[in-house]
């Protein structure tokens, strides 16, 4: 499948914002299931864009704007060829030893409720892959995949208590539960091609868990499936914080309005253009360190 992505993040500031710095984890790498044909990141204001790699092996662009800006758009466009691997991730160069992914992280701490849920979900099963499938089904069933009450900084425990969340939240619940079961697991940020609509309000999020003898396997708790060729993998981390598409900072600028537009379609299909323009808006006050872009 050839997935085509347009991802625009538009910032508007009440008054000119200075010292804009953003860390962008918006660039995918190749692996056996995906090949990046073309990819571009274009900020609409002048500044320096430098590329590096973080400790997980993600590609990070650090963008710093030169002057004071009233508005800025980060526009990402690209095309990626993907293939069906039934969730098994191959051809990824692993930067970190497996036990690292057992480390507890801020957004994915298992509270008593998640621990009990995890134990019950896997039951008496002893096969590692089977346990993960049971957990996948359990999370998919227990937590409604629905936008609404959760935000970019909702924790696993909070989302689990609400029994409701976006892709990010379901991923966090899965991660917290899997780590409780001593399974190395990580958060994946990316894009998901939906058959019904190209326009989306955000990118998507899922998880990868380490299965003995098999390697890393991708699970999408939001859809209750192993990852498919419709999943375009961009960045990984212990949780959302490590893989967040944008982490930014500025001085001044007053209230910020952020609008996100994501369009994911199949470059080969004659996709019927959707009329409804998907867009998510959020507002942030003052000298914020931006972390507002949740993953649907």
């Amino acid at each position, binding site marked *: 499948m050839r997935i085509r992505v347009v991802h625009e993040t538009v910032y508007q500031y009440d008054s000119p914002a200075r010292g804009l*710095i953003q860390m962008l984890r918006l660039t995918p790498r190749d692996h056996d299931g995906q090949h990046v044909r073309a990819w571009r990141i274009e900020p609409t204001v002048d500044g320096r864009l430098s590329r*590096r790699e973080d*400790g997980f092996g993600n590609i990070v662009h*650090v963008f710093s704007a030169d002057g004071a800006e009233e508005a800025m758009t980060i526009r990402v466009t690209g095309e990626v060829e993907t293939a069906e691997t039934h969730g098994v991730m191959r051809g990824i160069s692993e930067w970190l*030893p497996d*036990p690292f992914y057992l480390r507890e992280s801020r957004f994915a701490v298992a509270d008593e409720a998640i621990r009990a849920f995890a134990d019950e979900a896997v039951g008496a099963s002893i096969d590692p892959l089977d346990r993960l499938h049971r957990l996948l089904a359990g999370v998919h069933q227990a937590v409604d995949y629905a936008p609404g009450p959760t935000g970019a900084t909702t924790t696993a425990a909070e989302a689990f208590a609400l029994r409701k969340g976006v892709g990010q939240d379901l991923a966090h619940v899965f991660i917290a539960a899997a780590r409780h079961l001593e399974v190395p697991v990580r958060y994946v940020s990316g894009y998901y091609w939906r058959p019904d609509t190209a326009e989306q309000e955000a990118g998507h999020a899922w998880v990868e868990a380490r299965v003995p003898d098999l390697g890393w396997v991708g699970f999408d708790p939001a859809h209750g499936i192993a990852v498919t060729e419709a999943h375009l993998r961009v960045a990984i981390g212990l949780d959302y914080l490590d893989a967040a598409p944008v982490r930014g900072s500025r001085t001044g600028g007053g209230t910020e309005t952020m609008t996100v537009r994501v369009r994911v379609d199949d470059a080969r299909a004659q996709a019927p253009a959707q009329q409804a323009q998907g867009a998510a808006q959020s507002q942030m006050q003052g000298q914020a*360190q931006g972390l507002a872009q949740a993953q649907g």
Partner: protein
Amino acid sequence: MPLSAFDEMTGVQESGPSPSGPSPSGPSPAEVREAYAALKTWLDTTPPEHFDTRRSQAELFFRRIGITFAVYGDNESTERLIPFDIIPRVLTKPEWGFLERGLKQRVTALNMFLADIYGPQECIKAGIIPGDLVYRNPHYRLEMRDFEVPHGKYVHIAGIDIVRTGEDQFFVLEDNARTPSGVSYMLENREVMLRLFPELFSKHRVSPVEAYPDALLATLRSLAPMSAARDPTVVLLTPGRFNSAFYEHSFLADKLGVDLVEASDLFTKDDVVYMRTTEGPRRVDVIYRRIDDDFLDPLVFRPDSVLGVPGLMSAYQSGSVTLANAVGTGIADDKAVYSYMPEIVRFFTGEEPILHNVPTWRCREKDALSYVLANLGDLVVKEVNGSGGYGMLVGPHATKREIEEFGRKLRHAPDGFIAQPTLALSTCPTFVASGVAPRHVDLRPFVLSGADDIRIVPGGLTRVALKEGSLVVNSSQGGGTKDTWVLDG
């Protein structure tokens, strides 16, 4: 099990003060160790009123200079003075020589350990320390992997807590490798002693500690990145005046002659750190930061930190600025890692450790766990980093119920804990309400590791548990401080 504490003045190894009252009788004057002989005479011959006057003068001095330790919050009334005891704690030249060699060896090993776990990880491959202990530790910072820190040093300022249990028995209790504090007390305590008791200094040859700020500045300057000017700009980064150690930050900045900056004074541009000055942006080469890793850069660590500088890590990783201490040194003062220090010292220095660890049971090991569970009443059980806030247990002071409850927690998550015997810290004569009495002390010397050299000012901070029988020297729990004398011959 009665603890047998070593008294540093009398040299007597005796049963510590019982909980019911003071020890039966003081030692006779004949039983005084040589290092304390002149002090003992001074204590015996000086009229008590003289001490009273001097003690209130000392307190006045500390209040005037404002050396307070703030309990978190804005309120004035939360500023407290740490009690100062006018009787110095004395170490002989040979004792110090031993400690100094041990400290150098230990800090050298700490730096080599950090370089290794952020680099080739030989010590993990060699089975010296289990990998998951490192990888699962929140203080092990991914950002530091395969990053060559300027001049290869990580822990530039270390505070090694040492306790003594006998004539020749010194143990390291803790390696403070993040942002150790307390050095201002070492300097101010000496200052006040010199003012109040000049006559004592004519009877003793006390090694000076006043060179500490110079040594610190020399260390910091030596760490400047290669790209820095010949006269590098050094700053001290503080969380601000509401921080409990703010007095120390401003005191040190003043003594070093460097700017005391807050996060808002710094900004980054194209991976270079600048400070805002009245003459425009000025490039910063070395940051002596007194802010924890978690708060340094909201773009990399905690996004809600307002104490940090956005882009600082990126600048640091580009090599344009040195952070002292380096990021990620917290792994070296983790309690679980501590228990491996003897092996770490041997592995990296090829020598036997000079300073010993307090014997430590790692509850992650099966045999150790069953021993600990069987002996909870006699042990101190401590939580290792990042295991979720279960607290600690001091066996001899705990109730039966507390011990049982803790035992359950321990069985549930043994990896999160280590256990140590309750140590009888040595005692020193100390002024208390009823006169002079022995009180338990520890010692925190400060070890400076520059690009070129390791510097240690002879002495350190002696903390004293003022409550009778107490082994807790922390200022938040009734601890005080003393001047620490290293005799020069």
